[in-house]
């Protein structure tokens, strides 16, 4: 174990997997000598010559080339300079990567990774949380790590997976979140929730950046003697329905929290699963805390208002518990 930041854990996973398997390589904009806009790939170009490839500004070409090379035995990790730019290559994911197993029976072992999320005054084009688009696209796996150890372990699993995986890093966690991370090779299985705080009165089901805000909220709620269990779902596809239900059946109350906008967000899916499968266990309506249905604004003041904050989680939790 060693203490690492979230971003170090990601870089580490890349390096270890590149070392472990010659077919792993990286492509994207400015990823080689420069090491990427956030320096996630720094040093890898020198260590693995020819396996870290700078591309022109062409997300469609990056994703398409990743698919082609994956069909031909490689394990590409494609970096989106910001996850927002994945919209430029959306078709490659929605129609090519996602259907190849189904249509041809061929694996497309590729990972698409990059910084997503708000909270950094990035404005509408450098802050989006788009995981729900991909969760609603059969054939893609979707991963949203919250902690350094999971960031490392889930990325390794993503790289070793034979299917296309969307791996959403949260840029606000890169250097703000530290934690103990197993050294050397480390994988975390997909489709298993992680209970990051145990509690009895309410289950907060969440992922990504909001795991941390939910934990803060849980602490505040504990001051009022409300015992909150925080469940980090970690992977949206595959989705650990049982893991979520287990917690809800224990606490009998659930609050679903994510940073993405609310309408048709992934939170709705979680609510729907709970409502369908744990209806009798529920003592209160399942509520959601999510971003307002708006682009993420640039001004700090406005951004804080649009994105869900600790206080929003606290209030919603109180409402559910007090129901």
């Amino acid at each position, binding site marked *: 174990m060693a203490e690492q930041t979230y971003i170090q854990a990601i870089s580490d996973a890349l390096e270890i997997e590149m070392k472990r398997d010659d077919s792993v390589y990286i492509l994207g904009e400015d990823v080689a000598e420069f090491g990427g806009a956030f320096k996630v790939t720094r040093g890898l170009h020198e260590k693995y010559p020819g396996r870290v490839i700078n591309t022109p500004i062409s997300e469609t*070409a990056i*994703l398409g080339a990743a698919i082609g090379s*994956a069909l031909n035995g490689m394990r590409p990790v494609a970096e989106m300079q910001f996850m927002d730019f994945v919209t430029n290559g959306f078709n490659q994911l929605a129609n*090519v990567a996602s259907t190849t197993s189904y249509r041809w029976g061929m694996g497309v072992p590729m990972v698409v990774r990059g910084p997503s999320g708000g909270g950094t005054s990035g404005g509408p084009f450098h802050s989006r949380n788009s995981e729900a688009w991909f969760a609603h696209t059969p054939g893609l796996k979707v991963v949203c790590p919250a902690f350094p150890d999971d960031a490392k372990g889930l990325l390794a699993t993503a790289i070793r997976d034979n299917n296309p995986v969307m791996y959403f890093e949260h840029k606000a966690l890169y250097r703000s979140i530290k934690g103990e991370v197993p050294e050397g090779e480390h994988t975390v299985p997909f489709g298993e929730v992680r209970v990051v705080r145990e509690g009895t009165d309410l289950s907060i089901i969440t992922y990504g950046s909001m795991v941390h805000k939910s934990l803060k909220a849980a602490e505040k709620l504990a001051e009022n003697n409300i015992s909150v269990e925080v469940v980090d779902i970690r992977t949206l596809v595959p989705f650990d329905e049982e893991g979520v239900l287990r917690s809800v059946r224990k606490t009998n109350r659930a609050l679903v929290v994510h940073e993405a906008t609310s309408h048709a967000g992934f939170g709705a899916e979680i609510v729907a699963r709970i409502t369908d499968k744990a209806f009798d266990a529920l003592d209160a309506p399942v509520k959601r805390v999510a971003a307002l249905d708006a682009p993420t604004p640039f001004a700090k003041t406005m951004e804080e208002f649009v994105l869900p904050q600790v206080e929003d989680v606290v209030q919603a939790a109180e409402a559910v518990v007090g129901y």
Partner: protein
Amino acid sequence: MTLPFEFSETIQRSDILRDEQRKELLVHMLKAREFDAAMGRMYRQGRALGGVYSQLGNEATAVGSAYALEANDPLFPMHRDIGAHFVRGCDIDTLMRNHLARVGSQMRGTDGTGHYGDHSKKIYGNVSHLGAMIPVAAGYVLADKMRGTKSVAMNYIGDGGAQVGDFHEAMNLASVQKLPLVLIIENNQYAYSTPTDEQFACDKLSDRAIGYGIEGVTIDGTDVELVFDTCRQAVERARAGHGPTIIEALSMRMRGHAEHDDASYVPKDMLEYWQQRDPVDRYAAWLIDNGILTADEIDGIRKVIKEEMNECIDTVVELPMPDPEEGGKGVFVAS
């Protein structure tokens, strides 16, 4: 109707091809044509599934180009490249099952036409989204390049599809990385109902190559030997590390976009012009003129193919479609 340049009346004899190979070329072209005719009949009899996209007029381009590849070179064909499938050794039964979504079809009934992928033959079919396979083909050979394998990818796109952004991003990436990719632009004068002058405003689509700093050439796509020779050179250049080539092959889509479309928007004289240049008839006549095959021999070949085709149809049509439950399977491969 204007043409970008004067076509030669006669077949441009290749210096590389042996007569045995010439016969093969003809056989592949005939197969493509007969397959096409069979599918058209099926459509009219209401026995087809989904759209039926004729390749009539495209035989020389599809066959001549695919024939320029080595067995290890990946082929990324489009919907009208049935001829290329035959060159790769794909059989009628496989194609027919796939087109009709019958049990045992290459894609289990998940998708149709020539969209299938087959590692054993290095065939990687297309998705419907035009242009989407160009970056995929580029990535495929990028992988080989990284490993030091000298494969060359051949991919196809239409006069319409060449306007899609994927074309640009992929050809640009391929030129920067000097990837061994040959892109055939099958300019068959129409994209669905849209004539070329509503698709692009340049003289030749191969002029796009200049903007990528690569080789580009426009040729008569109805002359199988010219297509073969041109592609062969491009393949060799690519294999030698000199990067991608764009080859615009001119031909005519001799039927509607798909069989439901009577193509009444196509001027009659245009079809007549191209009818004169029918890729199969022209080549057959040339083979006879040059004493490579006799008319009788060609008739014989055609007859055998037709019989095989009919037998195959009779068998495949009787097959059931896959089990319904297949529809829920295979969304992911085992991880």
